[in-house]
């Protein structure tokens, strides 16, 4: 539903832009652009509305932060949380592309994710990702043909059973970091997206992790470590990103968010933000 509404809205906006370029005089272009930007901002508002509110995030995660920095007005990254059967479901996702195409994919992702989680009774994230992949492939009519678009979603999903102190993780290209006693534990993802794969789709793996109080869990898109910048205009990279998290993990969540934001902004300097940035952190209480 969200997907179709958003899609229709954006398509109308793009069609309007095309007509403007071809048929209208150059003097009208600025006016039209303003309208388009206005429309995109509105689309961005809709997209934000689809993301869980602070109240919901607090209810599900407790102590948390999100660093959500879309490259454009609308974003291809999204995060999503829910409570199901006494379990907490947490997703940090990065859809192919950014801007309008990424946003369209993110709407598709949220919509499908909600469908899968509501309709299915499994508490295993890998099975949810398997099903999510089916929905995405079906929605995008992906059949693995050579010449078709390979759009998909990279994401990490955690399902936490607080009663049993268990965290299940399944990842599509996006890893999971847990910092415990000053040590960063990385759980590697399956190297395939939620969507058609280059080769045959394989089932996602399920990782069961025992969690402890005060563990800090981080889920993120590749926007932060892949951001170009610094003195030599290079990627921030994962090693420094891990070190950064290790440095700040004992601080309160909002301070961590602020340090991450400042760090990436400083790193970017005058460079353009190349992708949407999403880092989601929360503490096990």
């Amino acid at each position: 539903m969200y997907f179709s509404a958003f899609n229709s809205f954006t398509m109308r906006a793009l069609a309007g832009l095309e007509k403007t370029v071809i048929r209208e005089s150059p003097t009208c272009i600025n006016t039209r652009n303003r309208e388009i930007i206005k429309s995109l901002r509105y689309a961005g508002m809709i997209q934000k509305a689809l993301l869980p509110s602070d109240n919901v995030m607090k209810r599900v995660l407790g102590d948390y932060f999100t660093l959500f920095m879309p490259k454009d007005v609308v974003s291809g990254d999204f995060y999503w949380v829910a409570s199901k059967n006494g379990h907490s479901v947490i997703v940090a996702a990065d859809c192919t592309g950014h801007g309008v195409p990424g946003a369209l994919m993110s709407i598709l992702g949220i919509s499908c994710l909600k469908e899968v989680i509501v309709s299915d009774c499994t508490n295993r994230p890998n099975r949810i990702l398997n099903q999510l992949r089916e929905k995405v492939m079906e929605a995008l009519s992906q059949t693995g043909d050579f010449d078709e678009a390979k759009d998909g979603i990279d994401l990490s999903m955690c399902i936490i059973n607080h009663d049993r102190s268990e965290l299940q993780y399944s990842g599509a290209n996006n890893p999971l970091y847990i910092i415990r006693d000053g040590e960063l534990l990385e759980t590697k993802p399956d190297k395939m997206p939620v969507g058609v794969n280059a080769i045959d789709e394989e089932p996602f793996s399920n990782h069961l992790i025992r969690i402890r109080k005060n563990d800090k869990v981080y889920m993120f898109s590749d926007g932060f470590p892949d951001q170009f910048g610094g003195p030599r205009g290079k990627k921030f990279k994962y090693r420094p990103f891990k070190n950064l998290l290790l440095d700040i993990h004992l601080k309160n969540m909002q301070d961590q968010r602020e340090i991450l934001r400042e760090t990436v902004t400083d790193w970017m300097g005058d460079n353009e933000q190349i992708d949407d940035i999403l880092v989601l952190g929360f503490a096990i209480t």
Partner: protein
Amino acid sequence: MRFTGFKIKNFRSIVDTGWNTLSADNITALIGQNESGKTSVLEALHCFYQGKISEDVLRSDLSLPEVSCSFSPEDDHQLEFAENCGLPGGVLDQIKKDGEFILERKWFPDLSSRIYLAGDKIVSVFEALEEDNRMLTMKTVSGAEKIIKQYIEKTNEARLLEENIESLNKEVRAINSSLASLDKQLKRSGKSGEREIIKRKLEDAENNTSMISAKIKESENRLYELQLSIAGESFLKEKAESCIDLCNNLSKAETDLEDAGKHLKSVEENLSLSRQRKDKRTGEAKLYEARNRYISLSHSHDILKDKAGVHVRVFSKLMDNIEIQEAEKEGEAEYKQYNSIITREAAGALFFKGIPPFEFFEDFSSLLPNKMDLEDIFDNNSRVEGYKAFRNFLIVAGLDPEFFRQTNNRILKQKIENLNNEVTVDFQEYWRQNVGRTNKIRIHFELEHYDITHPENRGRPYLEFWIKDQHERLYPNQRSRGVRWFLSFYLELKAFARENINKQRVLLIDEPGLSLHARAQEDVLKVFEDLKGKIQIIYTTHSPHLVDTGKLYRLLAVQRSNDNREQSETIIFDASHLHSATSDTLSPVCALLGSGLTRQEALDRKKNVIVEDVSTFYYFSGLAKLLKLPSDISFIPANGPAGVTTLVSLLTGWGFRYTVVLFDNMANDVIITELQSYLQNFEKAGPGSRLLFAESIPGAEDLLSTLDFKKHIIKKRVGISGSNTGYITDNNISRPLLAASFAQSTASGNITVDDFDEETLDNLNRFFTSLQEMIRTSDEIL
């Protein structure tokens, strides 16, 4: 009141059928070859109701027939007729608890019969009652004899004591006389020595006298005691003698009555054999005399029986030291209560009134005539040919004969036209055959008047019947035997159903529709189905068209115990033991379902799994191999969900045990309810058979994860957001082909269990563990 089962002994070729349960849905079919004894079963049941048999039904060893039938009241109200009717305490409660009662009819050498309330528990109540009475009589008579014996012993002792006392008195008198003599001698004697001797003698005699006197005293005391006791017991002794006399007289009266009964029968038989008038006159006189004697003895016997009954009870009380007035009061009351309890035979007669009537449907006794005079209708002239069929016709049409007294010809004609349409529409609901391609037959009657060609009846009204089709208008007699039979059958059954809306009956039909086309035979089944609410139907058949393969629980297979058919006895197999019947007996079933499954060695008697279709069969076969399930599990495919019930019927009937696997889809929703009902009908066969409902799994393909389904079954990389079976349906793919290909891949080793993802393995493990568990518990029951 439902007729629930029967047991027949010594009837034609039947020695003992054992108990056979009738179908719970009121339609029972007896199948079997000619001469197997099917009709004998129907006749025996009819005789049970009628009470009459001919010598033809007796077996060569002249053992007498016994037919027992069980009946089940729908609720306790249907047993109200038996309340306060003198049944022994606990009998009615037992019947209510059991939910059924048994009536047993026994025939005697004179071919008369008696009906008894039967059943082990009920019989034991009656027997206990009789035993109590017998024991009371025996104990009382024994007590009476003891009392008499003691009385005689006391009398004898008293007499002896009297004699003894007399003797002692004599002795005393003699001693006294000798004392007087000694006393004189002492006075006369002067010698001291002599005087001493006489004095000693005197002392001895006095001592003797006092000793004897003491004995006399003792004897007199004892005698007094005895006399008191004898005086006290003389009344009891008289009563004891009277009690014994009455019991002896009763015993003699019973013997006399039995002899008189035998004599009466013998006189009756002699009279029936008499041919000469003189012999007949003599015989009649003897019969009169014998009958009078029997009545007189019977009367005397009854009086004696009552007297003895009361006396025994009174005397029993007296023995317990109860005062005579009280004993008489209690004894009479007890006997009155005992005498008010009806016998098992009387109870049988009482319950017999509560059972539905049994009727033997007679094929052509009620054929619709070509015409019927109204005069015969008004006069209720039942001897006129076709009267019964005409009466049935009026009932089916809902018409009172008085209607034909209507003088307004227009009203008459209009009403008749309407009725013709109504009856035809109803008839056509059951008779689906067409004459030619589309031409349906119609039942038609008209009011006519005799014309000049019938001068003797000229002007008189009559009704004329026709069986019409588009091309022809023929009298009933001109129509085929099949149509006439069906019409007769239709009218008879519908008339009964209309006339007896709230009554039940048992209809026995021998070979219905022998002359009917297969389609019409199926129509007969349709009529049965329509009427089964109020009419219990038991019919014999050879025809596969009169057997509903979906309801094999209705069958009772009748056959001879061995191939020597003339001499062997009839045996009956109920639905759960059809596998024991021969294939010849089961030919109607085999004709419908192919050869007998029991002869298929591939099937196990217990570990059968009925699956809804051939696709599921392929998947299960393939998966069973991959998962290394025990090889003795047989998967049996049904021909779609509707065929599952047929297979269930078939396997149950043929003695197999099975587990039905049904997936959670719309097509199976109805089947699940039906199956539960079917398993209830197969009450005996129920244990050991199971239903595994795979909740939330729409089909066998959904046991595989979507990914495995794509990889190993459809072999396509495509997004499937719904169920796997839904994808097949939505894309119009051949399920059986996919399933067969999967089975082939598993057989050839192209797919192994390691190729499945954890979701698939988890599903398969859970599902097949449940299945094996069901099979295991089923085995344990068996």
